[in-house]
């Protein structure tokens, strides 16, 4: 942190004597403390014994696993359906492209409970889509399907935007040359575009997962049960207070961090060579 501060001084010729320098530094310190203090406090609050006890609770394990599993599913669905759309948005220009992009961003700005209510209003029996799903035996209300639907809804924009940026950073000329050398569009995507874009896909996947795991407001409306971890944390807080909800929260944070760390390490560029 401090070495970076020094680098900034060199870049902007700010000297340590200037009050502005000290204002920027103190603002930075305040923000760091603001973010880290509550998290550190929460992580260190529960005793190790309590942590051990909590993880032996089958309900806790089940809800954390459900959280991770549904978030990964949402990211997987985003990958399958979002990748082609991101590619089209990155490569073509058409009338209404801005509109499509704004629609993709909508889930980011809509309040979370509203998302839940909106999804239920389509999935209910009063709606033709809900009717069809009912006949097919697909239930959204209070089911894993419902949770994944909600998480995909809120996570998809993060995946599409990240991957679109990734595709845009690849020169279309590389694809053009590949085609002129005899590769079909599909071969070109597999041999040129994908190897160059998979890192941004992974980053998009992580962002989508992260957003999905943190979702509470929309899920609680669509499916209180089966309980994902944030809902369980909320329930324990309501019923037993801070002390009982903290260990579950800590476990969720630890597992999420571990998961994201692994994915992040995979997305790091290899040293040397390229």
């Amino acid at each position, binding site marked *: 942190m401090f070495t970076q501060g020094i680098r900034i001084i060199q870049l902007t010729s700010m000297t340590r004597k200037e009050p502005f320098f000290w204002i920027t530094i103190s603002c930075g310190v305040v923000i760091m403390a603001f973010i880290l203090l509550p998290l550190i406090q929460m992580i260190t609050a529960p005793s190790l014994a309590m942590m051990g006890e909590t993880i032996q609770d089958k309900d806790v394990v089940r809800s954390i696993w459900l959280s991770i599993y549904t978030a990964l599913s949402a990211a997987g669905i985003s990958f399958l359906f979002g990748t082609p759309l991101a590619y089209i948005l990155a490569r073509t*220009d058409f009338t209404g492209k801005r509109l499509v992009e704004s629609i993709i961003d909508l889930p980011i700005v809509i309040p979370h409970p509203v998302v839940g209510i909106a999804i239920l209003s389509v999935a209910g029996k009063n709606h033709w889509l809900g009717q069809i799903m009912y006949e097919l035996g697909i239930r959204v209300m209070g089911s894993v399907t419902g949770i994944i639907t909600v998480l995909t809804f809120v996570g998809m924009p993060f995946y599409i935007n990240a991957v679109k940026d990734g595709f845009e950073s690849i*020169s279309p*000329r*590389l694809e*053009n*040359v*590949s*085609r*002129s*050398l*005899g*590769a*079909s569009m599909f*071969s070109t995507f597999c*041999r*040129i575009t994908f*190897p*160059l874009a998979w890192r941004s896909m992974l980053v998009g996947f992580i962002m989508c997962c992260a957003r999905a795991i943190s979702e509470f407001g929309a899920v609680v409306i669509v499916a209180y049960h089966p309980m994902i971890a944030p809902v369980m944390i909320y329930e324990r807080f309501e019923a037993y207070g801070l002390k009982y909800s903290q260990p579950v929260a800590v476990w969720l944070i630890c597992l999420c961090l571990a998961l994201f760390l692994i994915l992040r390490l995979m997305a790091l560029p290899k040293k040397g*060579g*390229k």
Partner: protein
Amino acid sequence: MIRTEGLNIHLGEFHLQDISLAIKKNEFFVLMGPTGAGKTVLLEAIVGLVAPRSGKIFIDGRDITRLPPERRGISIVYQDYALFPHLSVEKNITYGVHFHHIDKDTAHNRFSRLIDQLNISHLLKRYPGTLSGGELQRVALARALMVSPKVILLDEPLSALDPNFREEIRHMLKTLHETSHITFLMVTHDFAEALSLGDRAAIMNQGRIEQSGCIQDIFNRPESTFVADFVGMKNIFSARFSSKSAQVEDLSFEIPSPHPNPTGYLAVRPEDIIISHTCLDSSMRNMFKGTVGRIIDQGFSYEIHVISGGVLFKSLLTKSSLIELGIKEGLEVFISFKASAVHIF
């Protein structure tokens, strides 16, 4: 060999209109024009990456207008080389082999011949990110030639290179063209490059072909003010013509041949105009007295503006002649040029 018929392309702000070109087999054809003339778009249309709104493209008499790029047998080398950054030099060069069902021996022979000819055998394990401009260009050429295309399209192959590399690659292009049966179509905005490499050329401006034909002809007999200016005829005047002379403002020019129309244009190359202190006693039929206006330093030479009879002439002088003649702004001088140096259109 390649023929385009009335090609019309609309691509965002670009409009290519009525492009008709005929390029012969095994020819080195040069497409010239200023930046933004639509040269790259035309190349991409020929490769099949941009669909024309109307018109047709033929190769060896076969209509390929609706054929996808991978089935046209046309390679393209971009100005920025567009090497695949995630593949080694070797993998870049052999990228197309897989799709062309070239048998192993042929591929191997062609590969060793190309890396030999282009002098890149020491680079095979490297990645594009670590290569210099000249090396990138040679690898890009090898990759394009590896699939033995019918035509190779080169988009400003020399413009991004250092001057010393430029000479080397220019020479290499000439050799590659002479030793292969491939038709070359090169885009450039540099007339000197075109003269040294090409057989025939077309000049493009604002999405249209202004003139096409033998490069020498374009250089000596431009058909429009744009082409005249583009090939360096800096003195272009609108003129009224009579049988043996032309009238520009107050000056009367002797011309090599009669002009078919009463009005038209007249052009003289700056290097054909001689500046002197006294009236030259020679075969120069056009001689005018004038005053030196601006003197512009162009690095290797000076552009001298001389105003005579309300007409601004531009001439070129080397630094030594400038000093020798003692040319200064406001000096009275004579300018002279042969009737054969006057180009009319």
